[in-house]
């Protein structure tokens, strides 16, 4: 896509600090990590959840279970998208029954991905509580959804795209705002 970088929102240090703070907030709010599980939403929520797991291990000396959620099968736009999304699969090899699930994603936008993720989690069991952690909240909600932990709030226009780049997938840690060509609006929370 012919988009150009408008501004850098976070550099590698910024990403690291935000995740470090979120990890502390998760521990503080839940008074430890006893019943906690982390679930990353494919695709960029997965490495973020992995990093939170590592930071929590450093602070608390405990391993929090880590799962991967693919929301493709729960999307509300399957019939209206031009391209059929690939199903990459959910990998949650533990019970979420009566646990506190911290759902992790890169960007919170319309809230539709989170809605799909909540439905997908409910089909796997009945957690005691679900909390949401995101690196960026860019506004423009279309559903009544809010995050419990936010790396950074970034006011955006719909003509812009927030691009989160992560070492594990993109080879660098960076969050930038890109200007889309004039006739394009970003739909939903970006592609799965």
């Amino acid at each position, binding site marked *: 896509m012919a988009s150009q970088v408008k501004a850098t929102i976070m550099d590698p240090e910024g990403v690291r600090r935000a995740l470090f703070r979120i990890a502390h907030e998760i521990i503080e709010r839940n008074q430890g990590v006893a019943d906690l599980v982390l679930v990353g939403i494919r695709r960029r929520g997965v490495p973020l959840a992995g990093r939170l797991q590592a930071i929590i291990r450093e602070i608390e000396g405990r391993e929090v279970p880590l799962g991967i959620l693919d929301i493709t099968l*729960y999307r509300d736009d399957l019939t209206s998208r031009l391209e059929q999304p690939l199903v990459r*699969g959910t990998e949650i090899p533990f019970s979420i029954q009566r646990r506190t699930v911290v759902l992790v994603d890169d960007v919170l936008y319309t809230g539709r991905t989170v809605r799909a993720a909540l439905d997908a989690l409910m089909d796997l069991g009945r957690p005691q509580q679900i909390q949401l952690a995101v690196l960026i909240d860019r506004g423009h909600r279309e559903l009544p959804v809010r995050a419990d932990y936010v790396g950074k709030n970034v006011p955006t226009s719909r003509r812009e795209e927030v691009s989160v780049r992560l070492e594990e997938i993109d080879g660098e840690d960076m969050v930038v705002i890109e200007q889309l060509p004039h006739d394009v609006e970003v739909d939903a929370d970006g592609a799965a």
Partner: protein
Amino acid sequence: MGLRSKDILALQEMTWEDMQLILDTADSLREIISRPIKKVPTLRGKTIVTFFHEPSTRTRTSFEIAAKYMSADTASITASTSALTKGETLKDTAYSLEAMGVDCLIMRHGVSGSCHFLARHVNGSVINAGDGTHEHPTQGLLDMMTIRRHKGRLAGLKVAIVGDVLHSRVARSNIWGLTQAGAEVVLAGPATLLPEQMPGLTVPAYTSIEDALRDADVVYVLRLQRERQAKGLLPSLAEYARNYSINRVRLALAKPDALLMHPGPMNRGVEISSEVADGERSLIVEQVTNGVAVRMAILYLLLGGAA
């Protein structure tokens, strides 16, 4: 991303890219089968009809269960209770079903090519669940999935398909699929049950089962189709079993880590001994599980995107 065709009719016509897409998607969906709540909402509002002109337990049930796990609605017709017995043509039945809003027809029929015929006359998707002695593509795909899950690949493997190749649509789908995937396929069976030749394909065929099994990575045993015999192709079942039944001694000719497969239903003691069918190399039960996953994948890929 998506399949190139609205129908799944034959692996002979399918590209390896499309097969890989189905196998990858099936690997991802398989986990749903072992959940406490085996349902995802993906195909809500889609209607699927199974239309079987020949008996089946596993294939039909597998399709219906796959559809239900994906939240599609299903109805089923059997030839003996349908208006076909009143003389209605296949085409007219299909038009009626389409007029009711059916999105996908899954058909098994005794005549080779009947699913192609149907697919030309309806706008919805048609899935071939077995047409005569031609193909059974979803069986071929579930077998490929099973092999790939255990060996990690298909290319370069030697797969020995043994038994009643002549009548087997399962064998044909596997031959087309596996050769496209880069596997080496060899056939074995009595001369009367080996096809003379398959257009466009040269697959070695042996009448000595020992020759075919040597160094095989997979031993694929076909069902002896007793209902299609009747023409004196076999002297007796006992003689067939003596020369071609896969038992412990014959299985030992294949590689030490060879996989044993059978599409079911088995004639125990005829083409396969109970000892190996229930043994540790047997993947026969897992094939059934993977069958549901492959059919979920196909239904998602055909019906789960933009219309």
